[in-house]
């Protein structure tokens, strides 16, 4: 019975089927909002689903010089790692089955894997555009990874725990404390935009420069998996942020908890979407200097503040 229960959670709720539904809807929401902000009509609700199904039916072309095994493996690894990361995040506090001390670190690492798969996918495609794109995607990693990590670390410092469940429990006990992390929230939000490779940080996929970056040679099912992985990454990233930075509305009934979590996730997606609407793509050197000159010091400042607060408030 326990096994069946587990299987239900993995496959249906909050498992793969639910995640697929949420992530395709998130893509629709993101595209529709982007379009409305740009004074366009935007796609119908089923567009991401239709795109996915269409791509599944398309021919797969593998470049003759590419390493076929790596080429095929990379989308699967990307998809697996983001789905695994999702299971570790408890936006619905009662449904976490896989929580452990230190899962915050595990999630950040699991979210790094897709970037490496983009790099390897581009590198093994042996196309010039893909190789430049993959090199850029790795460069970018050095820019946003540290601020992202420091950003999610800050609330954990205040809560004195490495587990997301622990963090949520702490802020549940001290309801007024979560707004203290506002600097870290902004830093992490911007770093997440970099992680998701969206404007202004879509340098690795800059269409007008290097076609589609690491994905230039991808088509058919493999491209569909990559795109799904990116959608899921967006949901997982937003869920991580909402769990760590927006820990409120936790004592509701199970159904309401799920709805509250979804509201928080889509609130963060809204912020990400508005950010990509109002700016232009910056250059890789500008991105690295921006992340190291502004985001990292800001994240350190937040950690310092939290250390002081911890002494002052909790002793």
């Amino acid at each position, binding site marked *: 019975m326990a096994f069946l229960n587990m299987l239900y959670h993995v496959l249906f709720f909050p498992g793969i089927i639910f995640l697929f539904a949420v992530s395709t809807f998130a893509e629709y929401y993101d595209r529709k909002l982007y379009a409305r902000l740009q*004074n366009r009509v935007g796609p119908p609700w089923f567009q991401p689903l239709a795109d996915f199904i269409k791509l599944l039916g398309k021919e797969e072309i593998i470049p003759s010089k590419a390493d076929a095994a790596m080429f095929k493996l990379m989308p699967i690894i990307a998809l697996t790692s983001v789905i695994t990361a999702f299971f570790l995040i408890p936006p619905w506090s009662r449904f976490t089955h896989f929580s452990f001390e230190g899962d915050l670190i595990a999630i950040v690492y699991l979210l790094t894997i897709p970037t490496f798969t983009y790099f390897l996918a581009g590198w093994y495609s042996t196309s010039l555009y893909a190789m430049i794109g993959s090199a850029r995607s790795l460069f970018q990693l050095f820019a946003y990874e540290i601020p992202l990590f420091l950003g999610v670390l800050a609330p954990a410092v205040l809560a004195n725990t490495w587990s997301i469940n622990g963090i949520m429990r702490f802020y549940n006990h001290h309801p007024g404390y979560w707004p203290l992390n506002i600097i870290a929230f902004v830093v992490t939000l911007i770093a997440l935009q970099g992680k998701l490779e969206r404007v202004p940080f879509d340098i690795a996929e800059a269409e*007008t420069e290097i076609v589609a970056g690491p994905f230039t040679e991808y088509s058919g099912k493999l491209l569909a998996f990559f795109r799904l992985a990116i959608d899921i990454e967006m949901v997982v990233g937003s869920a991580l942020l909402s769990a760590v930075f927006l820990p409120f509305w936790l004592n509701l009934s199970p159904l309401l908890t799920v709805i509250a979590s979804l509201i928080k996730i889509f609130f963060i997606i809204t912020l990400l979407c508005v950010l990509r609407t109002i700016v*232009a793509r910056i250059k*890789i050197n500008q991105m690295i200097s921006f992340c190291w000159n502004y985001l990292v010091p800001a994240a350190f400042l937040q950690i310092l503040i939290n250390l002081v607060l911890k002494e002052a408030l909790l002793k």
Partner: protein
Amino acid sequence: MTNKVTIPIGPQHPALKEPESFSITLEGENIVHSSVRLGYNHRGIEKAAEQRTYIQDIYLIERVCGICSHSHSTCFIQAVEEIGKFEVPKRALYIRTLIGELERLHSHLLWLGVAGHEIGFDTLLMYTWRDREIVMDLLQMLTGNRVNYGINTIGGVRRDITAEHVKQILKDVDTLEERTKYYIKLGTQEVTLAQRLSGVGTLSHDDAVKLGAVGPTARASSVDRDIRRDDPYASYADVKFNVVTDNHNDVYGRTLVRLGELMVSYSIIRQILDKLPEGPVSVRVPRKIPVGEALSRYEAPRGEDVHYVKANGTDKPERVKLRAPTLANVQAVSKMLEDGHLADVPIVIAAIDPCFSCTDRITVTVNNRASGSSQVMDWEGLRRMGIEHYRKRGIDFRNIKGIK
């Protein structure tokens, strides 16, 4: 990284709207060398113009470019009218100027959107192209067409404008002026936009003069040159306007010049509509144009457009030569790309507002690459080579009736 890679931007590439080849040698992200290759879209328009009558040529020449179609047809017609010494009614000249300025509006708005897209700022693209629709609708109202207006004819224009038209234009110009002010504010205050445009694709004043840059590209390097003022045609002598120049010498400067020119165009349109004289819009001209030759210049949205027409007394021109502004500007692109980044390539190319199809008019073929010798072909030789080329691929023109 010390290894150099050469990446092709084109002939087919998302940054380019037309086939053109830029070969960029990179060291890491930095450009060490770049070269431009033209000739993917040669259409033989000049030769085709020699085989058609002047009236047919108006429509052919108008199709040299989709954006500055009015510029090309006006430039051609001005040359023909000069040869024939035709008196064009004043009202017709005013209408030509009006359409020319509306064309400049939609061309510059289009450019602004393309520039936004090249630097990943799609919101700007959507906004400017939405506003461009207003101009397109005006052009459709005035001429019946959105792109190739077909309003010009030798000796005048083919359609008159009414009082309702004037009212509608003035109303829409007010809307556009307000939106343009917003874009100027955006261009000067948005941080990421300024970061992507400032200091990119620099072309000094001396280089701009030396490489023969024209239009906004030259004016952004403080070259104070505008055919509308220097050699007034149509009714530009009757209106007051400033020539917008800028000393930034970079893509940012080119953006400011184009935005400034939009504001100037609004003022010109208002003055034209205010002073619009009464009278006929065309005169009857003979089909046969007397012997003579003329060179005509026109300030197209992209820069100076030059047409040369030689008439031999028949109803067909003996020679038509045209030089689109992009041909003058494309030389400067290699200079602008020097010491740049790969990320700057699309916007630097876009900043000259290139129109490659208008530029491609190459008639010299390099036959023997190995020995390095080139050969100038005459018309017969070129024709024979074309026929042979297709025969090898299974298409034999000799079987088609009327072709020997």
